[in-house]
């Protein structure tokens, strides 16, 4: 490597993550969150504490041709830092229970045309995107929201890390998106979407932005066999509706999500509300959630893991998790784009079985109420954490969280 690229890179690092070279714009971000979590909601009626580095991420966002073409990428290093998941009672998915699964190394790799025809269509804007990333369904990725610990409804409220091709149209306050993607969810942090399944699943989302800062969406997705990669598993029919407010120091989100699996054999509901306020260097936040979770057969050698690949379509029960999470993040230190943001957050959890089945929360955890508390610090450099989950020009123009 010659010295010139290194010099450019150094300038980029010191320039807050943005550089302009003729018609090329580059944004970047790196972050990591060392976090200590302690909870008494642990299989086997015990408490457990763990120190892990979560959400280690490197992002690169390149815009070219006057923002007519964009490339968004995110590399997630959780494969190395939380290979066995993040201790997070209630979280589930991709073969994990009570631990949030590590995301795949290539978290996002999308080529985007945010406004394909520019002013040619007048007030109508057409956009398209393709690559590995977010399906136009539901709400923003929890990684780009205030609380560090993921909500229970991650697999009800978002569809991500898929090979996706989407197109959309924005006219005034309305945006309509539609996408084709592969239904199979990742089977490991290193896995790629099964390209032979591209197009077996689809989603559509209608978004309304009536005034600046307010965004409401309804979306629907059909996901073929998400939990069985060869395609032999049941399908999901997913619905989401939400309203999001972000203006000045205020942020708020209310969300409802609903998943019908196997034609309604299993129905999972979720309702969530969260808010945050940036004030005097602090960012207090709160999240209230009630979400359902399917209980699956756990492994002999780890009560946090479930059978993959699945053998049958049956579950042990559905549990309902009611959680109240509150925390505060402090802008403790900043040097150019380098920031240190310590935080502490705590959750109070209640667990109940919904309907019949052989899974007993009291037997599994020795309790039906408990807590989880996390303290840590977000180390970041580069641009502010963008919203994650949307590729339309309107969203990307407002992609900086307060």
């Amino acid at each position, binding site marked *: 490597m010659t010295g010139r690229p290194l010099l450019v890179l150094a300038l980029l690092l010191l320039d807050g993550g943005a550089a302009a070279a003729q018609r090329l714009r580059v944004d970047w971000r790196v972050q990591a969150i060392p976090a200590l979590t302690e909870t008494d909601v642990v299989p086997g009626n015990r408490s457990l504490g763990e120190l892990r580095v979560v959400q280690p991420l490197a992002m690169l966002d390149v815009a070219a041709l006057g923002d007519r073409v964009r490339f968004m990428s995110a590399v997630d290093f959780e494969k190395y830092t939380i290979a066995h998941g993040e201790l997070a009672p209630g979280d589930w998915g991709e073969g994990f229970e009570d631990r949030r699964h590590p995301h795949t190394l290539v978290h996002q790799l999308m080529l985007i045309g945010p406004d394909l025809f520019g002013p040619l269509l007048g007030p109508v804007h057409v956009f398209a995107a393709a690559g590995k990333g977010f399906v136009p369904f539901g709400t923003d990725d929890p990684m780009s929201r205030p609380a560090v610990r993921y909500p229970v409804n991650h697999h009800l409220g978002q569809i991500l890390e898929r090979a996706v091709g989407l197109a959309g149209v924005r006219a005034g306050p309305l945006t309509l998106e539609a996408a084709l993607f592969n239904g199979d969810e990742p089977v490991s942090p290193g896995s790629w979407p099964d390209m032979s399944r591209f197009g077996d699943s689809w989603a559509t989302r209608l978004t309304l932005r009536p005034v600046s800062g307010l965004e409401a969406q309804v979306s629907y997705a059909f996901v073929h066999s998400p939990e069985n990669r060869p395609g032999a598993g049941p399908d999901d029919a997913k619905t989401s509706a939400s309203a999001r407010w972000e203006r000045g120091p205020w942020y708020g989100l209310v969300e409802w999500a609903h998943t019908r699996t196997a034609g309604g054999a299993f129905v999972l509901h979720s309702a969530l509300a969260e808010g945050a306020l940036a004030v005097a260097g602090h960012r207090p936040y709160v999240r209230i959630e009630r979400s359902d979770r399917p209980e699956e057969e756990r492994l002999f050698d780890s009560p946090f893991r479930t059978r993959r690949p699945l053998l049958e379509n049956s579950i042990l*029960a559905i549990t309902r998790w009611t959680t109240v999470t509150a925390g505060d993040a402090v802008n403790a230190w900043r040097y150019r784009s380098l920031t240190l943001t310590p935080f502490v957050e705590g959750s109070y959890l209640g667990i109940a079985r919904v309907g019949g089945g052989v899974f007993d929360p009291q037997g599994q955890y020795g309790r039906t109420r408990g807590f989880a508390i996390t303290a840590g610090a977000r180390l970041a450099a580069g641009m502010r954490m963008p919203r994650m989950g949307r590729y339309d020009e309107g969203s990307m123009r407002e992609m900086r969280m307060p």
Partner: protein
Amino acid sequence: MMRAWVSSLAIGSSLAACSGDTGKVTQPPPPVTDVVLVDTIPVAPNYGIHDQYLRDGLDIVCAWNTGILIYDVGNGIKGGSPSNPVLVGSTTTVGGEAHNTWWFHNPVTNEKRYLFVGQEGPGTIGSSSVGDIHVLDVSDLTKPTEVGTFHRNGSGTHNFWMDEPNQILYAAYYNGGVVSIDVSGTLSGDISSRMIDTITFGAGDTYTWGVHLYNGSLYAMDMLSGIWQLHDSLGTLSIAAGGNNETERYGSDLWVANGYAYTGTWGFAQRVSGVFGNALKVWQLGAGGAPTLVDSIITPNILTVSDVGVSDDNKLLMFSTEGGPNSGFWFYGLADPAHPTFRANYLVGSGIHTAKFARINGKLYAFGARDPGNPAQVILDVSALDQ
């Protein structure tokens, strides 16, 4: 061909963990016998293989959404053998999820025309289930054709047994208990009206895994309430004895032979904290056929005993295990049928979901369904154990 030598397992210390049982301990003798891997038939991971049915030298594989696969393993129709299975025919069933089967040999008509296939749909274990019985016409084994369906609202089928002389199919029906169905004559279309009788064991007490007809009684193994003896009068069912005899674990499969019932336990959820589904229980059948627990075998480092069978000469007990490092095939001698003695095992890391005996050309084989992610049928020659 590969030869697998069975290693010694020190399991005696774990036997006492069978809380709530008789407290008797069956000490395994040093294993001295061998099990020979004959062949492995890969099955598409769609999900894979769930069960198999062996009769007349044919191996009928239930391969979930791949359907029903019929192999010649000694019948002669295609020149197959256990070491060289040859596919005779296959078909998919409506809705897929082919789970178990029974090939009906009708002694009244001398026909071998119908194959009953259980579909295991999505369910909540202990509470709900769905899945129909599909009727296939296998008059031409090379072209099995679905001709009928049996459906029940609110419950789904699991394992079968038949009273062939009386042309009655018995089906475990999970939360629907046990069902008896008249399968005489020609079967076509919706045969749901042919249900003779059904029986459950009470609300919150019924999730029936399997049935077995023996000495005029139908034995039902219920995951929630244990083993029941049912009176059976040409398909009309009533409770005779047993039941509410499995409290510390969930029940699984059963086999009845030699005046004893052998039942498995399921443990992917723990009924009592710290107690796994690692027990094979032995029930002595009284003069009237009522079951009384007399012994149990604890296999350490597994979660579930998923299938149970006894060889046709009643000398060898086999059960399959899943969920742990001791997953695989386990074999026990039945010289004393009340107290089986360890003979051998054949461990398979991903687990064996079901296992069936078959005697082919004088040799005794065990056919097992290997769990995903690398699903296959595993065929073992266990003749050396059959002494």
